[in-house]
């Protein structure tokens, strides 16, 4: 009779129990999964109030934030585990798993599941989400001039950025693989921009594209420096529609080629040497080795890297947002329009509709990507 519901046999045992006890167990589990995390959150809450104090010394606020943020989450689990210890032994191990997964599920419900449903609802409502307006917002998305422009631009982003990143990355990985020395250093130099924020990279590139009209000081941008050196007139690079979109894409290519290169390089190194050597002994040229052996062997990796780049390009926001006035420059993209409509134009319905369009565009690519990633994980 005193067998505790050990961690191995909880579900079948629960099924064999009389109905009353099963309900009791269920209620307890529900409490474990929902109530206990909420209580712990409430406790932490009181500390957070301090952090709102505008006049407090910044150093102290940041210090408290670090201690509370890092310590709080440990305290949360420790506290919940202590509560579980007080439960009757019979149910303890049945409740404990829900303590472990509870916070994860609570946060995901609040921050992802609920918002997805809510965004879908909002996208059918008006600017202040008061009345349903049917498909008006979606009609707007597919007829408004700037929206159509942003869809065209985003299409260019998701084709060109992955194309250049993967091509340059593959070429560089193949070449660097042949180096006797310095391969690691060369690769980390290409990879380095990956550590920088889009905002930082945008400033870096604005310095390169910088333009001053004649008579307004000297041109200190590298590109216009070259133009002047060649005896040409300086060019306002970021105002040349539609080519300025390419100028912005260059930034993303600069940042993400390193990622493509590192992943592809690892795939190239995983090709068994015997195959490549055999081909060379049989008289294959380097180009043939590359096209007939290296590329086909790493095709799955190329696919994964490409989808990753496509998703990133679909969601590009920071570069366009930081680099200038997207609307007047004609550099609008979908993710940037969403923020603009929600925050600047204060039209939640249209913002949500744009987000939904983005979601619908991303889901198939993402599902495919996760599936490929899982396959790769299995074979590793």
């Amino acid at each position, binding site marked *: 009779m005193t067998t505790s519901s050990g961690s191995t046999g909880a579900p079948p045992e629960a099924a064999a129990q009389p109905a009353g006890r099963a309900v009791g167990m269920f209620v307890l589990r529900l409490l474990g999964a929902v109530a206990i995390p909420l209580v712990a959150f409430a406790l932490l809450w009181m500390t957070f109030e301090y952090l709102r104090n505008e006049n407090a010394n910044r150093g102290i606020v940041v210090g408290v934030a670090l201690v509370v943020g890092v310590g709080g989450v440990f305290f949360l689990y420790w506290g919940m585990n202590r509560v579980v210890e007080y439960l009757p032994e019979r149910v303890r191990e049945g409740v404990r798993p829900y303590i472990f997964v509870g916070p*994860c599920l609570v946060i995901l419900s609040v921050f992802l599941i609920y918002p997805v449903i809510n965004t879908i609802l909002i996208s059918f409502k008006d600017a202040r989400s008061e009345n349903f307006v049917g498909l008006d917002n979606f009609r707007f998305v597919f007829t408004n001039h700037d929206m159509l422009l942003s869809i065209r631009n985003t299409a260019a982003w998701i084709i060109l950025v992955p194309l250049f990143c993967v091509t340059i990355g593959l070429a560089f990985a193949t070449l660097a693989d042949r180096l006797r020395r310095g391969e690691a250093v060369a690769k980390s130099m290409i990879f380095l921009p990956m550590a920088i924020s889009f*905002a930082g990279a945008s400033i870096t590139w604005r310095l390169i594209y910088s333009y001053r009209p004649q008579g307004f000081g000297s041109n200190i941008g590298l590109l216009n420096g070259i133009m002047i050196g060649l005896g040409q007139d300086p060019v306002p690079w970021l105002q040349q529609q539609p080519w300025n979109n390419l100028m912005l894409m260059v930034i993303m290519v600069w940042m993400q080629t390193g990622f493509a290169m590192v992943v592809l390089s690892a795939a190239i190194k995983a090709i068994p040497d015997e195959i490549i050597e055999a081909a060379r002994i049989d008289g294959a040229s380097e180009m043939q080795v590359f096209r007939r052996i290296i590329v086909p062997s790493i095709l799955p990796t190329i696919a994964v890297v490409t989808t*990753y780049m496509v998703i990133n390009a679909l969601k590009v926001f920071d570069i366009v947002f*930081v680099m200038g006035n997207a609307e007047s420059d004609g550099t609008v993209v979908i993710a940037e329009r*969403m923020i603009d409509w929600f925050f600047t134009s204060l039209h939640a319905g249209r913002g949500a509709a744009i987000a939904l369009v983005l*979601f619908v565009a991303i889901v198939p690519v993402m599902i495919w990507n996760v599936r490929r990633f899982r396959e790769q994980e299995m074979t590793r």
Partner: protein
Amino acid sequence: MSSPTVPPAAATEPQRGEIAMRDVPREARNVGEPRQGGWIIRITVALIVILWLIPTAGVLITSFRPEAQVLGSGWWTVFAHPFRAAEWTLANYTTALDAAGFGNAFLNSLAVSVPATVIPITIAAFAAYAFSWMEFRGRYVMFVVVVGLLVVPLQMALIPILRLYADGAVLFGRQIFPDLDLNGTFLGVWLAHTGFGLPLATYLLYNYIGSLPSSIIESAKIDGADHFTIFWRLIIPLSVPALAAFAIFQFLWVWNDLLIAYVFLGGSRQNQVLTIALRNLLGGRGEDWQVLTAAAFISMSLPLIVFFSLQKYFVRGLTAGAVKG
């Protein structure tokens, strides 16, 4: 290959990589080796590397030049007389740190990034452990839901969460979520980053923790350890490589993030993080290149330190993080 006890056979094995090749006698090499190569490859690689470094070099050099020089001539002109003292200054960094508020913003970035890294990893590690080593009803369904949420782009969540923070949630005329007034607070940003990072973190840690040998956990159970002790004393120490890789990815992701900080923390001078401060500076003093570049370099400093000191974990983390939604 520094170990003195390497058997001679190891050297002739067709191992890939420069070290192994160097040990092979010269005559044995030329059969399976790339024939051309040499100079052309070396020069091409060097050219690409230089091309890739030019933008960063421009920022770094400009940030150390006095205002008059910066506005009067391109940064590449310093190479004409690199040792003239009038060409260099540290004043831009003091301006950026104090007057432009980047010292403050650096602290804010830290206060956002460290908890926004620790919280999701801790929550994900507990969940990953439960999904791999505990048995409970609904385990499979819950796990599928968590992994399924990988496909949700965070843009889908911005508007509802912003409203949730501001007014709480009302369903059928009833308040189902309290009005917490979280906009503009660190906690609001931490939780948002936690929510958006959790699916990936849980999924990656599940892959790792689930692949640990079950014999370790079984023997700990026989010794009387409960799940909490096993998790804390056994699983966490064993999972350090996976935790470190994801921590670096998440930390840099949060540190470099502009969107979530812009939406939930706002652009007030008190609260702004580095990316927001950079953007505000660009709006307000868009042609003050000497301050802009110094500020940009301040924002890059920590990621670059992480990059150079933890490169191995860094690459692994970014590769693993490639499926973030």
